[in-house]
């Protein structure tokens, strides 16, 4: 790391550096200590939110605002570096795509995200994230792109009451037979505004009584008898 920093400082002798590090755990990392010693400002972010390689909108907003103001300071040669620790590549790619859209250096959420992801082997993304995170990441990139349409951004956190989840087609698990779905919901607890950190808000009880087994064969019953399924 020392070598890279020296190279950068040789290449940009008059520049100031700010580093965004997507860290692995909760603690301040060794890399931020090293970079701070090299006169670099380091800001650290987590690398996931409840297992999803995305960050809460407030944090994204903080990142975008900090980056934008750093890069647009007049009369200075400011350089922004992004670094991730093990497992942080999916969130780094998302944040970089968000910044490029925010600064209007690129347009089109999907095109921008794919362009960033191409900077590393696709296998790396698949290795780090068991689920393909792009659909949720694209949703958040759209939130960023559409910020001019609303007056307030990030918007105030509207409280909602979740009622039910409806699957219009039965997903097939158990070797194609059907599925036994359990749902969990995470987020900040609306009844405790002082604590905005995420927690488990709901989980289907894992008992025989609560977890239903939906079988593919039930299709015909459902069609003819319109039984308990909606």
């Amino acid at each position: 790391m020392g070598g890279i920093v020296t190279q950068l400082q040789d290449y940009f002798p008059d520049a100031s550096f700010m580093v965004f590090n997507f860290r692995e755990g909760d603690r301040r990392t060794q890399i931020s200590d090293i970079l701070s010693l090299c006169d670099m400002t380091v800001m650290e972010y987590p690398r996931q939110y409840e297992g999803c390689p995305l960050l809460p909108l407030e944090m994204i907003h903080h990142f975008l605002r900090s980056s934008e103001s750093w890069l647009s300071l007049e009369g200075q040669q400011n350089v922004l570096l992004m670094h991730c620790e093990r497992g942080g590549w999916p969130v780094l790619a998302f944040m970089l795509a968000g910044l490029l859209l925010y600064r209007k250096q690129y347009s089109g959420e999907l095109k921008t995200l794919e362009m960033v992801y191409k900077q590393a082997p696709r296998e790396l993304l698949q290795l780090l994230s068991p689920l393909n995170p792009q659909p949720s990441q694209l949703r958040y990139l759209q939130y960023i792109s559409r910020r001019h349409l609303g007056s307030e951004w990030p918007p105030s956190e509207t409280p909602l009451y979740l009622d039910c989840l409806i699957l219009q087609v039965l997903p097939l698990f158990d070797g194609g037979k059907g599925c036994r779905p359990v749902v969990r919901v995470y987020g900040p607890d609306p009844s405790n505004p002082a604590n905005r950190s995420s927690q488990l808000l709901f989980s289907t009880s894992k008992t025989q009584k609560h977890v239903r087994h939906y079988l593919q064969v039930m299709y015909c019953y459902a069609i003819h008898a319109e039984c308990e399924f909606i």
Partner: protein
Amino acid sequence: MLVKIDIPCRVQGDVVLECIHLSEDLVREEMMFRVMFHTAFVRSNSLVLGRDDIDILWDTKDQFSKNFKSEVSYCYSYVTVIFQVSRQ
């Protein structure tokens, strides 16, 4: 056939919803899909998501289109999350 799963809870801000398949022993879990969204951008009282709007396993589409085309071409075609907007 529609599968309806009750998820009564209040949410505000950034929400992660995950749907898991539970094996017969009611212990082993297999992730079906995950969705992250922000409540401020939910405009109506439901959020309708197609297969391309939910995070699913990488190989689901490829593997299934090769081997289980007829069965899985409609897998996850739509997921609807119904909300009630609470008046506070």
